[in-house]
């Protein structure tokens, strides 16, 4: 089978890489400029809303879908370091190198008044040699745009140490992919879809342990790259995401995550995913997350595992 021409996948990759560098580079130059600002000015007053007032690491990192979270899981924490009187913005670039595929994501997110999070991410899933094996062409790449909204409903993951309840947030993500022809061929019902989720995150500070549990209603196949719904099932199913992270130092967390996914396509079995990660927070402007990740079977290749690297920059 040969479906769809191989249109400019290298160009798309280059664009994503350049965009990532531009955004991260912008943050690199902006951060010291902010720190060195001398006397108060109109600009300073305007920048005061970027209060960087949260504690280190409590803004979390950015997950594969561009939302504030861990790596695979979405957390209830609102991204960035803005407090309830401020705003925080960040950009990220993530590379996931698997046995037979690779995934790149670049995105931006803003946390407003520690209440609302808006995010946008562009992803590219490169089939490398597998594309040739499937007759799609070597390096055939699926692209996905993800727009996210998250709202903190109640509780505070950090301060409510005298209470049992976690911080609870609810969110929605609109995901749209290209490659409709391939998606239809494998049995996918739509090239776009909406996920909704409810997430609870709590820092058990006395134990230096952060725990997250997220329930997601979704139709997405392989996070959305293979479309939404399928021949086996075209309905929403409830999926689970969980993270546990141990804080070793103020700037270092080590943890593991688990995420279930729907299994809607009869020709491409889908498994749960897990990772083991280390997140290092250089300061409130930069963090680096490294992980071993296993996404299970992806189309014709079982046990897709590899490295996950994500750089976040913000203020």
């Amino acid at each position, binding site marked *: 089978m040969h479906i769809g021409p191989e249109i400019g996948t290298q160009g798309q990759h280059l664009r994503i890489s350049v965009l990532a560098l531009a955004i991260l580079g912008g943050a690199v130059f902006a951060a010291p400029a902010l720190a060195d600002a001398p006397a108060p000015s109109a600009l300073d007053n305007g920048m005061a809303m970027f209060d960087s007032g949260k504690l280190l690491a409590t803004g979390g990192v950015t997950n594969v879908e561009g939302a504030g979270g861990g790596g695979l899981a979405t957390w209830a924490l609102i991204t960035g370091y803005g407090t309830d009187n401020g705003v925080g913005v960040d950009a990220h670039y993530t590379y996931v190198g698997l046995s037979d595929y690779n995934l790149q994501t670049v995105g931006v997110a803003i946390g407003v008044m520690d209440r609302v999070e808006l995010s946008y991410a562009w992803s590219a899933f490169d089939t490398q040699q597998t594309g040739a094996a499937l007759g799609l062409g070597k390096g055939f790449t699926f692209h996905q745009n993800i727009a996210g909204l998250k709202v903190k409903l109640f509780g505070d993951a950090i301060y409510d140490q005298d209470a049992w309840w976690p911080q609870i947030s609810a969110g929605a993500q609109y995901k749209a992919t290209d490659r409709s022809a391939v998606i239809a061929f494998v049995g996918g019902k739509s090239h776009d879809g909406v996920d909704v989720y409810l997430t609870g995150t709590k820092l058990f*500070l006395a134990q230096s342990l952060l725990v997250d549990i997220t329930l997601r209603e979704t139709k997405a196949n392989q996070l959305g790259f293979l479309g939404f719904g399928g021949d086996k099932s075209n309905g929403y199913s409830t999926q689970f995401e969980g993270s546990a992270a141990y804080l070793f130092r103020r700037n270092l967390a080590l943890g593991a995550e688990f995420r279930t996914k729907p299994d809607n396509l009869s020709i491409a079995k889908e498994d749960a995913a897990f990772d083991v990660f280390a997140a290092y927070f250089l300061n409130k402007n930069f963090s680096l997350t490294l992980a071993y990740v296993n996404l299970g079977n992806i189309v014709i290749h079982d046990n897709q595992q590899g490295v996950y690297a994500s750089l976040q920059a913000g203020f």
Partner: protein
Amino acid sequence: MRFFTVAAFVLACAGATPAFADDDSLFQDLGGRDVIEKIAQYTAANFLADPRIKATFDDTNMERFEKLLSAQFCVVAGGPCEYKGRSMKDAHRALGLDNADFNAVVEDLQDALDKAGVPFATQNRFLARLAPMQHDIVTK
């Protein structure tokens, strides 16, 4: 699945309910009275050196403040002390502090705990007992 995950989360939460200061293990692990006095001393010095919050202490008798801080830390840690200062609510009502101020205080305290040589895990046990004070201290 849904029942299982909710149950697991509730159990995880219940297992981690903070133990209240019936025992003095945290007081001992911090290093006892001497180390707590040092922590209070370093913390007060950090507050005065911190441009984000130092103005809050313009009219404060720092010698008395340091003694009260030490007594409060000792009580919170489960030590054999008595705190005779005002409640957190009364002491901070007029200051109009926000979460960024509160977190600045936390960072200054963490620096003091580092300087006093308190291991990170012990610091967090201590901070976990102080964190709920945010509800009384932050007013805007």
